[in-house]
Protein backbone atom coordinates (compact mmCIF):
# COMPACT_ATOMS: atom_id res chain seq x y z
CA UNK A 1 0.00 0.00 0.00
CA UNK A 2 1.23 3.45 -0.77
CA UNK A 3 2.97 5.43 1.90
CA UNK A 4 0.86 8.56 1.99
CA UNK A 5 -2.41 6.70 2.43
CA UNK A 6 -0.82 4.58 5.14
CA UNK A 7 0.49 7.73 6.82
CA UNK A 8 -2.91 9.40 6.48
CA UNK A 9 -4.79 6.49 8.07
CA UNK A 10 -2.24 6.10 10.87
CA UNK A 11 -2.52 9.81 11.58
CA UNK A 12 -6.33 9.61 11.70
CA UNK A 13 -6.20 6.61 14.00
CA UNK A 14 -3.87 8.41 16.39
CA UNK A 15 -6.60 11.04 16.74
CA UNK A 16 -9.30 8.34 17.18
CA UNK A 17 -10.89 9.38 13.92
CA UNK A 18 -11.85 7.05 11.09
CA UNK A 19 -11.78 7.53 7.34
CA UNK A 20 -15.54 6.99 7.07
CA UNK A 21 -16.23 9.17 10.14
CA UNK A 22 -17.28 6.27 12.34
CA UNK A 23 -16.43 6.17 16.02
CA UNK A 24 -13.78 3.62 16.95
CA UNK A 25 -16.43 1.25 18.37
CA UNK A 26 -18.95 1.62 15.55
CA UNK A 27 -19.88 -1.06 13.10
CA UNK A 28 -20.78 -0.05 9.58
CA UNK A 29 -24.46 -0.28 8.63
CA UNK A 30 -25.53 -3.90 9.13
CA UNK A 31 -28.15 -5.33 6.79
CA UNK A 32 -29.43 -8.86 7.25
CA UNK A 33 -31.52 -10.71 4.70
CA UNK A 34 -33.01 -13.97 6.01
CA UNK A 35 -33.47 -17.05 3.84
CA UNK A 36 -32.82 -15.54 0.39
CA UNK A 37 -31.96 -19.01 -1.00
CA UNK A 38 -35.00 -21.32 -1.04
CA UNK A 39 -32.92 -24.33 -2.07
CA UNK A 40 -30.88 -24.14 1.11
CA UNK A 41 -32.30 -25.43 4.38
CA UNK A 42 -31.40 -22.05 5.81
CA UNK A 43 -29.55 -19.02 4.47
CA UNK A 44 -28.67 -15.43 5.21
CA UNK A 45 -27.03 -12.56 3.43
CA UNK A 46 -25.23 -10.00 5.55
CA UNK A 47 -23.93 -6.65 4.40
CA UNK A 48 -21.48 -4.70 6.52
CA UNK A 49 -21.28 -1.51 4.52
CA UNK A 50 -20.04 -2.76 1.15
CA UNK A 51 -18.87 -6.12 2.47
CA UNK A 52 -21.42 -8.64 1.26
CA UNK A 53 -21.49 -12.26 2.42
CA UNK A 54 -23.93 -15.05 1.64
CA UNK A 55 -24.15 -18.15 3.81
CA UNK A 56 -26.19 -21.26 3.09
CA UNK A 57 -26.89 -24.27 5.27
CA UNK A 58 -27.41 -27.69 3.73
CA UNK A 59 -28.38 -30.78 5.71
CA UNK A 60 -27.35 -34.30 4.87
CA UNK A 61 -27.13 -37.67 6.54
CA UNK A 62 -23.89 -39.39 7.37
CA UNK A 63 -21.93 -41.34 9.91
CA UNK A 64 -20.99 -39.73 13.22
CA UNK A 65 -17.39 -39.38 14.34
CA UNK A 66 -16.40 -42.42 16.38
CA UNK A 67 -15.58 -40.36 19.47
CA UNK A 68 -19.01 -38.71 19.38
CA UNK A 69 -21.29 -41.51 18.24
CA UNK A 70 -24.56 -39.79 19.17
CA UNK A 71 -23.89 -36.30 17.87
CA UNK A 72 -24.50 -34.60 14.56
CA UNK A 73 -21.62 -33.29 12.47
CA UNK A 74 -20.89 -29.64 11.64
CA UNK A 75 -18.79 -28.72 8.61
CA UNK A 76 -17.95 -25.14 7.72
CA UNK A 77 -16.37 -24.04 4.45
CA UNK A 78 -15.58 -20.69 2.88
CA UNK A 79 -14.72 -19.60 -0.59
CA UNK A 80 -13.12 -16.29 -1.50
CA UNK A 81 -14.52 -16.31 -5.00
CA UNK A 82 -12.59 -14.16 -7.51
CA UNK A 83 -16.00 -12.62 -8.18
CA UNK A 84 -15.65 -10.60 -4.98
CA UNK A 85 -12.30 -8.84 -5.27
CA UNK A 86 -9.73 -8.24 -8.04
CA UNK A 87 -6.98 -9.88 -5.96
CA UNK A 88 -8.88 -13.09 -5.15
CA UNK A 89 -7.63 -15.95 -7.26
CA UNK A 90 -9.16 -19.05 -8.70
CA UNK A 91 -8.35 -22.40 -7.18
CA UNK A 92 -8.74 -24.14 -3.85
CA UNK A 93 -9.32 -21.97 -0.74
CA UNK A 94 -6.21 -20.13 0.34
CA UNK A 95 -5.06 -19.97 3.95
CA UNK A 96 -7.08 -16.85 4.77
CA UNK A 97 -10.29 -18.47 3.50
CA UNK A 98 -9.58 -21.54 5.58
CA UNK A 99 -8.81 -19.39 8.61
CA UNK A 100 -12.11 -17.55 8.17
CA UNK A 101 -14.08 -20.79 7.93
CA UNK A 102 -12.36 -22.19 11.00
CA UNK A 103 -12.95 -19.07 13.09
CA UNK A 104 -16.65 -19.11 12.18
CA UNK A 105 -16.77 -22.86 12.85
CA UNK A 106 -15.19 -22.47 16.29
CA UNK A 107 -17.66 -19.79 17.31
CA UNK A 108 -20.60 -22.06 16.48
CA UNK A 109 -19.04 -25.24 17.83
CA UNK A 110 -17.57 -23.99 21.09
CA UNK A 111 -20.56 -21.89 22.06
CA UNK A 112 -22.67 -25.02 21.79
CA UNK A 113 -24.98 -23.07 19.51
CA UNK A 114 -26.35 -26.22 17.92
CA UNK A 115 -27.60 -28.99 20.17
CA UNK A 116 -25.68 -31.71 18.37
CA UNK A 117 -27.17 -34.56 20.40
CA UNK A 118 -30.58 -33.78 18.97
CA UNK A 119 -29.15 -34.42 15.51
CA UNK A 120 -28.59 -38.11 16.15
CA UNK A 121 -30.81 -40.41 14.09
CA UNK A 122 -29.28 -43.76 15.09
CA UNK A 123 -26.35 -43.98 17.45
CA UNK A 124 -23.04 -44.99 15.81
CA UNK A 125 -24.68 -45.15 12.42
CA UNK A 126 -26.67 -42.20 11.29
CA UNK A 127 -26.65 -38.55 12.20
CA UNK A 128 -27.56 -35.27 10.57
CA UNK A 129 -24.66 -33.43 8.94
CA UNK A 130 -24.84 -29.64 8.97
CA UNK A 131 -22.92 -27.99 6.14
CA UNK A 132 -22.34 -24.26 6.52
CA UNK A 133 -20.93 -22.74 3.34
CA UNK A 134 -19.71 -19.16 3.17
CA UNK A 135 -19.64 -17.31 -0.14
CA UNK A 136 -18.12 -13.83 -0.34
CA UNK A 137 -19.97 -11.59 -2.80
CA UNK A 138 -17.99 -8.39 -2.21
CA UNK A 139 -14.96 -7.87 0.04
CA UNK A 140 -14.65 -4.48 1.67
CA UNK A 141 -13.05 -5.58 4.92
CA UNK A 142 -13.97 -7.60 8.02
CA UNK A 143 -15.30 -10.66 6.26
CA UNK A 144 -15.01 -12.65 9.50
CA UNK A 145 -17.72 -10.76 11.42
CA UNK A 146 -19.99 -10.64 8.38
CA UNK A 147 -19.55 -14.38 7.77
CA UNK A 148 -20.06 -15.29 11.43
CA UNK A 149 -23.21 -13.19 11.61
CA UNK A 150 -24.55 -14.64 8.36
CA UNK A 151 -23.74 -18.17 9.53
CA UNK A 152 -25.58 -17.94 12.86
CA UNK A 153 -28.52 -16.15 11.22
CA UNK A 154 -28.73 -18.88 8.59
CA UNK A 155 -28.60 -21.59 11.26
CA UNK A 156 -31.35 -19.89 13.28
CA UNK A 157 -33.50 -19.95 10.16
CA UNK A 158 -32.76 -23.53 9.19
CA UNK A 159 -35.49 -26.13 8.96
CA UNK A 160 -34.64 -29.78 8.57
CA UNK A 161 -35.60 -31.43 5.30
CA UNK A 162 -37.94 -34.43 5.42
CA UNK A 163 -36.14 -37.70 6.11
CA UNK A 164 -37.97 -40.75 4.82
CA UNK A 165 -37.10 -43.65 7.08
CA UNK A 166 -38.45 -46.28 4.71
CA UNK A 167 -36.40 -45.24 1.70
CA UNK A 168 -33.57 -43.89 3.85
CA UNK A 169 -33.58 -40.82 1.64
CA UNK A 170 -33.91 -37.12 2.24
CA UNK A 171 -36.80 -35.51 0.43
CA UNK A 172 -35.22 -32.17 -0.27
CA UNK A 173 -38.20 -30.50 -1.90
CA UNK A 174 -40.13 -30.65 1.38
CA UNK A 175 -39.06 -28.81 4.47
CA UNK A 176 -40.25 -30.22 7.77
CA UNK A 177 -41.56 -27.97 10.51
CA UNK A 178 -38.60 -28.99 12.67
CA UNK A 179 -36.17 -26.19 13.23
CA UNK A 180 -32.50 -26.86 13.66
CA UNK A 181 -32.01 -26.86 17.46
CA UNK A 182 -30.07 -23.63 18.00
CA UNK A 183 -29.77 -22.48 21.59
CA UNK A 184 -27.04 -19.84 21.53
CA UNK A 185 -26.10 -17.05 19.19
CA UNK A 186 -22.34 -16.51 19.01
CA UNK A 187 -21.35 -13.10 17.63
CA UNK A 188 -17.88 -12.25 16.34
CA UNK A 189 -16.44 -8.79 16.80
CA UNK A 190 -13.14 -7.97 15.09
CA UNK A 191 -10.72 -5.22 16.10
CA UNK A 192 -7.93 -3.77 14.01
CA UNK A 193 -4.95 -2.28 15.75
CA UNK A 194 -3.46 0.75 14.05
CA UNK A 195 -0.73 2.34 16.14
CA UNK A 196 -2.22 2.38 19.63
CA UNK A 197 -5.79 2.67 18.45
CA UNK A 198 -8.30 -0.14 18.19
CA UNK A 199 -11.00 0.01 15.56
CA UNK A 200 -14.09 -2.19 15.50
CA UNK A 201 -15.22 -3.64 12.16
CA UNK A 202 -12.26 -2.46 10.04
CA UNK A 203 -12.95 -1.66 6.42
CA UNK A 204 -10.56 -2.79 3.69
CA UNK A 205 -8.37 0.31 3.89
CA UNK A 206 -8.02 -0.03 7.64
CA UNK A 207 -7.20 -3.72 7.26
CA UNK A 208 -4.47 -2.80 4.78
CA UNK A 209 -2.65 -0.68 7.35
CA UNK A 210 -3.46 -2.53 10.58
CA UNK A 211 -0.60 -4.02 12.57
CA UNK A 212 -2.69 -6.68 14.27
CA UNK A 213 -6.21 -8.01 14.47
CA UNK A 214 -8.26 -9.74 17.12
CA UNK A 215 -11.58 -11.49 16.64
CA UNK A 216 -13.58 -12.11 19.81
CA UNK A 217 -16.65 -14.33 19.62
CA UNK A 218 -19.08 -13.98 22.51
CA UNK A 219 -22.10 -15.94 23.66
CA UNK A 220 -25.52 -14.77 24.84
CA UNK A 221 -24.42 -15.03 28.49
CA UNK A 222 -21.40 -12.83 27.87
CA UNK A 223 -18.90 -15.68 27.86
CA UNK A 224 -16.14 -15.77 25.29
CA UNK A 225 -16.23 -18.80 22.99
CA UNK A 226 -13.54 -18.10 20.40
CA UNK A 227 -10.54 -15.86 19.90
CA UNK A 228 -8.32 -15.39 16.90
CA UNK A 229 -5.35 -13.09 16.70
CA UNK A 230 -3.79 -12.13 13.39
CA UNK A 231 -1.14 -9.78 12.10
CA UNK A 232 2.47 -9.04 12.90
CA UNK A 233 2.12 -6.81 15.98
CA UNK A 234 1.37 -7.82 19.57
CA UNK A 235 -1.17 -6.90 22.26
CA UNK A 236 -0.78 -6.06 25.95
CA UNK A 237 -3.00 -7.72 28.51
CA UNK A 238 -4.84 -4.42 29.13
CA UNK A 239 -5.54 -4.04 25.45
CA UNK A 240 -7.01 -7.53 25.34
CA UNK A 241 -9.15 -6.80 28.41
CA UNK A 242 -10.59 -3.69 26.75
CA UNK A 243 -11.33 -5.59 23.57
CA UNK A 244 -13.10 -8.37 25.46
CA UNK A 245 -15.30 -5.81 27.23
CA UNK A 246 -16.16 -4.00 24.02
CA UNK A 247 -16.90 -7.22 22.18
CA UNK A 248 -19.36 -8.34 24.88
CA UNK A 249 -21.15 -4.99 24.61
CA UNK A 250 -21.18 -4.98 20.80
CA UNK A 251 -22.16 -8.65 20.74
CA UNK A 252 -25.28 -7.86 22.75
CA UNK A 253 -26.35 -5.13 20.33
CA UNK A 254 -25.81 -7.25 17.24
CA UNK A 255 -27.42 -10.38 18.72
CA UNK A 256 -30.75 -8.54 18.77
CA UNK A 257 -30.65 -8.28 14.99
CA UNK A 258 -30.43 -12.04 14.36
Amino acid at each position, binding site marked *: MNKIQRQYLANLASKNVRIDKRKTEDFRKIEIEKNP*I*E*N*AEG*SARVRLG*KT*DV*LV*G*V*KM*GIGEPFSDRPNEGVLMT*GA*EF*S*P*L*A*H*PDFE*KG*PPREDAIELARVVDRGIRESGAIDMKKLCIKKDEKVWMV*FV*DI*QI*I*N*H*DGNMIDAAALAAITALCNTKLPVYNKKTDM*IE*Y*GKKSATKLPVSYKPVAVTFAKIGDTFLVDPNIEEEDVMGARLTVTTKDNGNICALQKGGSEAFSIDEIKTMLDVSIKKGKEIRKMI
Partner: protein
Amino acid sequence: MASLTKSLKCSKEAKMKRPNNRKPTEFRPLTVVAGVVPNADGSAMVKLGKTTAIASVYGPRSVYPKWKRKADRAIVNCTYSMVPFSTDERCRPGPSRRSTEISKVIGDALLPSIFVEEYPKTMIDIYIVVIQAHSGTRTVGINAASVALADAGISMRDIVSSVAAGKIDNTYVLDLEGKEEDASKCDIPIAYMPRKKKITLLQMDGDLSAKDVIEIINLARKGCEQIHEKQKEALIKRWGI
Protein backbone atom coordinates in the same frame (compact mmCIF):
# COMPACT_ATOMS: atom_id res chain seq x y z
CA MET B 1 -46.44 -12.08 -27.95
CA ALA B 2 -49.21 -12.57 -30.50
CA SER B 3 -46.77 -13.53 -33.23
CA LEU B 4 -45.20 -15.99 -30.86
CA THR B 5 -48.44 -17.82 -30.33
CA LYS B 6 -49.05 -17.87 -34.04
CA SER B 7 -45.81 -19.68 -34.70
CA LEU B 8 -46.92 -22.40 -32.37
CA LYS B 9 -50.21 -23.24 -34.00
CA CYS B 10 -49.28 -26.88 -34.07
CA SER B 11 -49.23 -26.95 -30.31
CA LYS B 12 -51.87 -28.47 -28.12
CA GLU B 13 -51.63 -25.48 -25.89
CA ALA B 14 -54.83 -26.09 -24.03
CA LYS B 15 -53.70 -29.47 -22.75
CA MET B 16 -50.35 -28.26 -21.48
CA LYS B 17 -50.08 -27.67 -17.77
CA ARG B 18 -46.97 -25.81 -16.76
CA PRO B 19 -45.71 -24.78 -13.34
CA ASN B 20 -47.34 -21.51 -12.29
CA ASN B 21 -49.68 -21.76 -15.30
CA ARG B 22 -47.06 -20.48 -17.66
CA LYS B 23 -47.85 -20.44 -21.36
CA PRO B 24 -45.55 -22.57 -23.55
CA THR B 25 -44.09 -19.38 -24.99
CA GLU B 26 -43.49 -17.73 -21.65
CA PHE B 27 -40.31 -17.74 -19.65
CA ARG B 28 -40.29 -17.61 -15.85
CA PRO B 29 -40.45 -14.26 -14.03
CA LEU B 30 -37.20 -12.46 -14.80
CA THR B 31 -35.27 -9.90 -12.74
CA VAL B 32 -32.08 -8.26 -14.00
CA VAL B 33 -30.04 -5.90 -11.83
CA ALA B 34 -26.81 -4.24 -12.99
CA GLY B 35 -24.01 -3.21 -10.63
CA VAL B 36 -24.28 -5.59 -7.67
CA VAL B 37 -20.58 -6.15 -6.86
CA PRO B 38 -18.95 -2.78 -6.04
CA ASN B 39 -15.38 -4.13 -6.33
CA ALA B 40 -15.89 -5.37 -9.89
CA ASP B 41 -15.38 -3.28 -13.03
CA GLY B 42 -18.86 -4.45 -14.05
CA SER B 43 -21.43 -6.77 -12.52
CA ALA B 44 -25.01 -8.00 -12.68
CA MET B 45 -27.47 -10.34 -11.03
CA VAL B 46 -30.08 -12.26 -12.99
CA LYS B 47 -32.93 -14.22 -11.47
CA LEU B 48 -35.12 -16.39 -13.68
CA GLY B 49 -37.75 -18.10 -11.58
CA LYS B 50 -35.67 -19.51 -8.73
CA THR B 51 -32.44 -19.77 -10.71
CA THR B 52 -30.14 -16.94 -9.66
CA ALA B 53 -26.63 -16.03 -10.83
CA ILE B 54 -24.27 -13.18 -10.07
CA ALA B 55 -21.62 -12.23 -12.64
CA SER B 56 -18.70 -9.90 -12.23
CA VAL B 57 -16.19 -8.69 -14.79
CA TYR B 58 -12.61 -7.59 -14.10
CA GLY B 59 -10.55 -6.02 -16.83
CA PRO B 60 -9.18 -5.54 -19.34
CA ARG B 61 -6.13 -6.15 -17.15
CA SER B 62 -2.58 -7.51 -17.42
CA VAL B 63 -2.19 -11.16 -18.29
CA TYR B 64 -0.40 -13.41 -15.83
CA PRO B 65 1.38 -15.66 -16.61
CA LYS B 66 2.74 -13.51 -19.41
CA TRP B 67 3.18 -16.27 -21.98
CA LYS B 68 -0.57 -16.59 -22.13
CA ARG B 69 -1.07 -13.14 -23.59
CA LYS B 70 -2.07 -12.61 -27.22
CA ALA B 71 -0.31 -9.82 -29.09
CA ASP B 72 -3.34 -8.83 -31.13
CA ARG B 73 -6.29 -9.23 -28.80
CA ALA B 74 -7.62 -9.76 -25.31
CA ILE B 75 -8.10 -13.22 -23.95
CA VAL B 76 -11.44 -13.80 -22.28
CA ASN B 77 -11.49 -16.11 -19.27
CA CYS B 78 -14.84 -17.30 -18.07
CA THR B 79 -15.35 -19.18 -14.82
CA TYR B 80 -18.73 -20.63 -13.93
CA SER B 81 -19.31 -22.11 -10.50
CA MET B 82 -22.14 -23.07 -8.21
CA VAL B 83 -22.24 -22.45 -4.48
CA PRO B 84 -22.61 -25.67 -2.46
CA PHE B 85 -26.06 -24.69 -1.17
CA SER B 86 -27.49 -23.75 -4.57
CA THR B 87 -28.88 -27.23 -5.20
CA ASP B 88 -31.19 -29.65 -3.36
CA GLU B 89 -28.38 -31.98 -2.46
CA ARG B 90 -25.25 -30.09 -1.43
CA CYS B 91 -22.81 -29.93 -4.33
CA ARG B 92 -19.10 -30.09 -3.68
CA PRO B 93 -17.29 -26.78 -4.03
CA GLY B 94 -14.54 -26.48 -6.63
CA PRO B 95 -14.48 -27.15 -10.35
CA SER B 96 -16.03 -30.25 -11.89
CA ARG B 97 -16.04 -31.57 -15.45
CA ARG B 98 -19.51 -30.09 -15.83
CA SER B 99 -18.57 -26.62 -14.59
CA THR B 100 -15.42 -26.63 -16.73
CA GLU B 101 -17.41 -27.38 -19.87
CA ILE B 102 -20.03 -24.76 -19.03
CA SER B 103 -17.32 -22.17 -18.37
CA LYS B 104 -15.94 -22.85 -21.83
CA VAL B 105 -19.23 -22.68 -23.72
CA ILE B 106 -20.27 -19.51 -21.90
CA GLY B 107 -16.95 -17.89 -22.81
CA ASP B 108 -17.48 -18.93 -26.43
CA ALA B 109 -21.03 -17.58 -26.33
CA LEU B 110 -19.85 -14.14 -25.19
CA LEU B 111 -16.69 -13.86 -27.32
CA PRO B 112 -18.43 -12.96 -30.61
CA SER B 113 -19.95 -9.92 -28.89
CA ILE B 114 -16.66 -8.47 -27.62
CA PHE B 115 -14.26 -6.31 -29.65
CA VAL B 116 -11.29 -8.29 -28.31
CA GLU B 117 -8.98 -6.71 -30.89
CA GLU B 118 -9.27 -3.37 -29.06
CA TYR B 119 -7.50 -4.75 -26.01
CA PRO B 120 -4.27 -6.45 -27.14
CA LYS B 121 -2.12 -8.25 -24.55
CA THR B 122 -4.81 -8.08 -21.90
CA MET B 123 -7.34 -10.39 -20.36
CA ILE B 124 -10.96 -9.93 -19.43
CA ASP B 125 -12.09 -12.12 -16.53
CA ILE B 126 -15.71 -13.10 -16.19
CA TYR B 127 -16.81 -14.85 -13.00
CA ILE B 128 -20.27 -16.35 -12.75
CA VAL B 129 -21.51 -17.70 -9.44
CA VAL B 130 -24.82 -19.54 -9.34
CA ILE B 131 -26.33 -18.94 -5.92
CA GLN B 132 -29.53 -20.87 -6.60
CA ALA B 133 -30.02 -23.54 -9.25
CA HIS B 134 -33.33 -24.67 -10.69
CA SER B 135 -32.87 -25.28 -14.45
CA GLY B 136 -31.18 -22.95 -16.87
CA THR B 137 -28.11 -21.95 -14.87
CA ARG B 138 -25.91 -21.55 -17.94
CA THR B 139 -28.38 -19.35 -19.79
CA VAL B 140 -28.99 -17.22 -16.69
CA GLY B 141 -25.21 -17.00 -16.27
CA ILE B 142 -24.80 -15.75 -19.84
CA ASN B 143 -27.50 -13.12 -19.38
CA ALA B 144 -25.80 -11.85 -16.22
CA ALA B 145 -22.31 -11.94 -17.72
CA SER B 146 -23.29 -9.97 -20.81
CA VAL B 147 -24.89 -7.21 -18.72
CA ALA B 148 -21.77 -7.21 -16.52
CA LEU B 149 -19.55 -6.78 -19.61
CA ALA B 150 -21.60 -3.78 -20.78
CA ASP B 151 -21.59 -2.40 -17.23
CA ALA B 152 -17.77 -2.71 -17.24
CA GLY B 153 -17.57 -0.44 -20.28
CA ILE B 154 -16.16 -3.12 -22.57
CA SER B 155 -16.53 -2.50 -26.34
CA MET B 156 -19.23 -4.83 -27.64
CA ARG B 157 -21.19 -5.53 -30.79
CA ASP B 158 -24.36 -6.38 -28.90
CA ILE B 159 -25.63 -7.63 -25.58
CA VAL B 160 -25.97 -11.42 -25.63
CA SER B 161 -29.23 -12.96 -24.44
CA SER B 162 -29.84 -16.59 -23.67
CA VAL B 163 -32.63 -19.04 -22.92
CA ALA B 164 -33.42 -22.71 -23.50
CA ALA B 165 -36.41 -24.37 -25.17
CA GLY B 166 -37.65 -27.89 -25.75
CA LYS B 167 -40.61 -29.99 -26.76
CA ILE B 168 -43.09 -31.67 -24.44
CA ASP B 169 -45.59 -34.02 -26.11
CA ASN B 170 -46.29 -32.05 -29.26
CA THR B 171 -45.75 -28.60 -27.87
CA TYR B 172 -42.69 -26.43 -28.22
CA VAL B 173 -41.93 -25.05 -24.80
CA LEU B 174 -39.76 -22.12 -23.78
CA ASP B 175 -37.54 -22.16 -20.67
CA LEU B 176 -37.97 -25.68 -19.31
CA GLU B 177 -38.16 -25.89 -15.55
CA GLY B 178 -37.62 -28.74 -13.11
CA LYS B 179 -39.64 -31.80 -14.06
CA GLU B 180 -40.33 -30.39 -17.50
CA GLU B 181 -36.71 -31.13 -18.36
CA ASP B 182 -37.38 -34.84 -17.88
CA ALA B 183 -40.68 -34.68 -19.77
CA SER B 184 -39.12 -32.88 -22.71
CA LYS B 185 -37.77 -34.80 -25.67
CA CYS B 186 -34.84 -32.44 -25.71
CA ASP B 187 -33.30 -29.36 -24.18
CA ILE B 188 -31.76 -26.74 -26.43
CA PRO B 189 -30.09 -23.77 -24.76
CA ILE B 190 -29.08 -20.98 -27.09
CA ALA B 191 -27.40 -17.61 -26.77
CA TYR B 192 -28.27 -14.95 -29.27
CA MET B 193 -27.23 -11.51 -30.46
CA PRO B 194 -30.59 -10.04 -31.48
CA ARG B 195 -29.23 -7.14 -33.56
CA LYS B 196 -27.30 -9.36 -35.93
CA LYS B 197 -29.66 -12.32 -35.45
CA LYS B 198 -26.66 -14.53 -34.74
CA ILE B 199 -26.59 -17.55 -32.47
CA THR B 200 -23.50 -17.75 -30.24
CA LEU B 201 -24.31 -20.76 -28.08
CA LEU B 202 -26.03 -23.91 -29.21
CA GLN B 203 -26.22 -27.15 -27.32
CA MET B 204 -28.72 -29.93 -27.37
CA ASP B 205 -29.38 -33.23 -25.82
CA GLY B 206 -32.33 -35.31 -26.96
CA ASP B 207 -33.71 -37.12 -29.94
CA LEU B 208 -35.60 -34.98 -32.41
CA SER B 209 -36.19 -34.23 -36.08
CA ALA B 210 -34.28 -31.45 -37.80
CA LYS B 211 -37.52 -29.55 -38.36
CA ASP B 212 -38.31 -29.63 -34.66
CA VAL B 213 -34.81 -28.47 -33.79
CA ILE B 214 -35.19 -25.41 -36.01
CA GLU B 215 -38.63 -24.64 -34.58
CA ILE B 216 -37.29 -24.86 -31.03
CA ILE B 217 -34.34 -22.62 -31.86
CA ASN B 218 -36.75 -20.09 -33.35
CA LEU B 219 -38.87 -20.17 -30.20
CA ALA B 220 -35.77 -19.64 -28.05
CA ARG B 221 -34.68 -16.75 -30.31
CA LYS B 222 -37.95 -14.99 -29.68
CA GLY B 223 -37.51 -15.53 -25.95
CA CYS B 224 -34.03 -14.05 -26.20
CA GLU B 225 -35.41 -10.90 -27.82
CA GLN B 226 -37.63 -10.28 -24.82
CA ILE B 227 -34.84 -11.06 -22.36
CA HIS B 228 -32.67 -8.60 -24.29
CA GLU B 229 -35.12 -5.80 -23.48
CA LYS B 230 -34.96 -6.66 -19.76
CA GLN B 231 -31.15 -6.60 -19.86
CA LYS B 232 -31.18 -3.17 -21.47
CA GLU B 233 -33.72 -1.87 -18.95
CA ALA B 234 -31.43 -2.94 -16.11
CA LEU B 235 -28.48 -1.01 -17.57
CA ILE B 236 -30.63 2.05 -18.22
CA LYS B 237 -31.91 1.89 -14.65
CA ARG B 238 -28.37 1.85 -13.30
CA TRP B 239 -26.90 4.47 -15.60
CA GLY B 240 -29.98 6.51 -16.64
CA ILE B 241 -29.76 10.25 -17.03
